[in-house]
């Protein structure tokens, strides 16, 4: 029997997981329905701040009842056996706008379990409430990761991402950093990759903001680390020259060409 064909985003996700696993990253997963705490506030997004405009969010109706039913939103002590009070028991829910939520949850747990230094990588579906066109989708996949330890630096971030993009897009890839801003990183960086002669914006990154480390129960005077995140769909579109992001979610097997 012929084997079935694979979705290009799955192929890419597997390759990305392999690339990061080779560098010691642990694969992490987490809920798509997320609390506003993990999606925003744990990540140092201030309430009522223009930074929240950066991500058009799907807020969930009647989310208090929904949150009550789900183990993902139980206080952390119910999830891990440790005491933690930053997550209130009936949060507002959103469809996660990034998988940095998973990074935060994983680092928080690793800290509690005494498993630092640690590095996590997660690839998952995220959602943005915006009109769709050839480069915008309401759902897409994000690749998000972080490494935390005593001395993890921007130089390490550059080394790790260089190795990653060379694996994904070819040995000739160069990467560079440019200034940016995200509430959850300081310094904040935009990562560019040179592919076929053009510098392309690939992902956001930076050093985890001390407030984020504190929010997940870590001590910023003892540990530091980098985080990064960007669209997997975008890498796929660049790698294979796919012109319309909407093709990924039509259930059309003609997409499975690789």
């Amino acid at each position, binding site marked *: 029997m012929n084997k079935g*064909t694979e979705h290009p985003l799955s192929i890419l996700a597997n390759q990305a997981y392999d690339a990061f696993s080779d560098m010691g990253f642990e694969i992490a997963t987490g809920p798509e329905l997320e609390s506003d705490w993990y999606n925003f506030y744990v990540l140092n997004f201030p309430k009522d701040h223009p930074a929240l405009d950066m991500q058009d969010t799907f807020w969930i109706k009647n989310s208090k009842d929904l949150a009550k039913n789900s183990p993902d939103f139980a206080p952390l002590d119910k999830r891990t056996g440790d005491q933690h009070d930053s997550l209130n028991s009936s949060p507002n829910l959103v469809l996660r706008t990034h998988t940095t939520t998973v990074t935060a949850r994983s680092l928080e747990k690793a800290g509690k379990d005494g498993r630092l230094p640690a590095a996590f990588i997660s690839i998952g579906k995220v959602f943005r409430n915006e009109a769709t066109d050839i480069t915008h989708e309401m759902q897409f996949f994000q690749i998000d990761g972080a490494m935390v330890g005593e001395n993890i630096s921007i130089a390490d971030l550059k080394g790790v991402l260089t190795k990653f993009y060379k694996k994904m897009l070819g040995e000739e890839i160069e990467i560079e950093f440019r200034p940016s801003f995200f509430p959850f990183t300081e310094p904040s960086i935009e990562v560019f990759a040179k592919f076929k002669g053009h510098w392309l914006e690939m992902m956001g990154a930076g050093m985890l903001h001390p407030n984020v480390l504190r929010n997940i129960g870590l001590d910023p005077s003892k540990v530091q680390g980098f985080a990064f995140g960007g669209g997997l769909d975008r890498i796929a579109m660049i790698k294979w020259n796919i012109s319309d992001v909407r093709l990924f979610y039509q259930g059309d097997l003609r997409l499975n060409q690789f």
Partner: protein
Amino acid sequence: MKISYNWLKWYVPDVPTADKLVDIFNYHLCEVESIEKREDGDIILDLKILPNRAHDLLSHQGVARELASLLNIAYVDPTPKYKIPESKTTKLEVKIDTGNCRRYMGRIIKNVKVGPTPDWVVQHLASIGQRSINNIVDAANIVMFDCGQPTHAFDLDKVQGGVVVREAKDGEALNTLDNKAVTFKNSNVIIADSKNTLAIAGIKGGKIAEVDNNTKNIILECANFDSISVRKTAQALNIFTDARKRFENDLSPELAPYAMRELSSLIFEMCPEATFEDIVDIYPKKQESRKLSFSTDRVSKILGLKVSVDEIKDILKRYLFEYAEKAGKFEIVVLTMRLDLTIEEDMAEEIVRILGYDKVKGDIPKINFKPQVNKTRAKIMWARNKLLAEGYSEAMTYAFCNKGEVEVQNSASDKKFLRTNLSDGLKESIKLNQLNAPFLGSDKVQVFEIGTVFKKSGEEMHVAFGDKKGVKEMKLDEFISPPRLSGSPPQKGGEEFPPQFGKEGAGGGNFKMWSLFPFIARDVAVWVPENIKSAEVLKVIKENTGDMVIRGPELFDEFKKDGKVSYAFRMVFQSYDRTLTDAETNEIMAKITSKIKENNGWQVR
């Protein structure tokens, strides 16, 4: 933020060419979204000022100061040129009745002459897309784009009594300068007089005290409002203005006196006969001077780049920070406008972006991490590999649909619910793919999806798989657990179902978009002598299919009988720019048939 190159040059005459500036901005400050050459020779750079620098960079002077420090070039201070005649005592009364106004500076100017605006002001405003209205309004406007402080001018003779900054009464109303009627809630902050509502604080002026062509006397406002209060009010009223943009990003109240001076001097330049009264300055809570400490070692440790004490000193001097240094530890006095600098990490960013991120060299940390196996991931991979091995192809469909149990509050699309199952989407997928079965090279379309569904009880990871006869769906955990499976379930997370897919080798080449026009599939079956290989027949067909064949010829059937062998091939024809007709395909098939017949003993069935 649109920056006029010529305007910028007033303050930094040695500024590099606009082309060079693009790289300087991109690598050291922020993204240049566009660059536009104007007919008058000016060049406009549209800068995407980052939110943490919106306190000090949403102005030409702000950007010029940054460039002067970054590039170590001269900054021409305009203040010596600001001339204001000696002011007279004033009767202006200002009262702040809300915690959301941090400072209010007002000044009465009498005997102004409203009229046309000097050319240079018109030109500067036009270069960044702003329309000239009259000299007084233009002066207030240009000061904002020049130094970053929003300002406003009221017609003094339309104001009754003093100026009050207060929270609105529920239902209080105002017509804005652009004739939009707004109604306030009591959390909104407004500017009022003893009788009327004059303006939405920090957002938009009102019609009542508008400066018009008959205006003789004015009140200038240079104030500072709480960023969150401005944002909430503007959001509720759905008003976007340049003033709002600046206030909601938070400005230093220390900017107000500077702007008052610049604005006053500009009005004096335009109306030399005007008389100026004293400034009334209500400033309930002064912005405190802040100190910030950081160490060279810590900055180097964050960056993974050895930065020297001298390099840091050089940067601090260029950026005009007062500082003290001892054994590599710095203490600086933060510039009043730099509200973004609060922690050591901010200085690490400041130093590295000024030096350039290219100075940081990549490194792979040599840490022996001990990653654990992710069980969810392992289960998904196991299920996926099993289904792929069984001939199911992988699809992804939309999480949004028309009905369900979990609903989003607001959506850019008409699908406001999240799916409760994968089957509905997968059935559509099968229908679509069934139509394309010849294109896909298979009669039997088998599809699967592994994904999240959303129910009242929360989200669940499901597996669905099927074909045109039907779709089965279950929770991922049920799918991988016995006795449903013939293969053994994973004992622990890491085991994978053989053979494993998605590894090395997959993923080369370029994507080929399919044609949106209909395709036509045709078969041809040929009897040939037993010693003839299928490849020989294939070659003849291939040479004659023309350029419209998008799939095939592929051998799909073969059998022997009476010393002869029958090969059946399938081809799919399709055009990228039009609908192919039957007649065209018939013609191709006729050509193939006749070419086959040219061979001895070959026969088309």
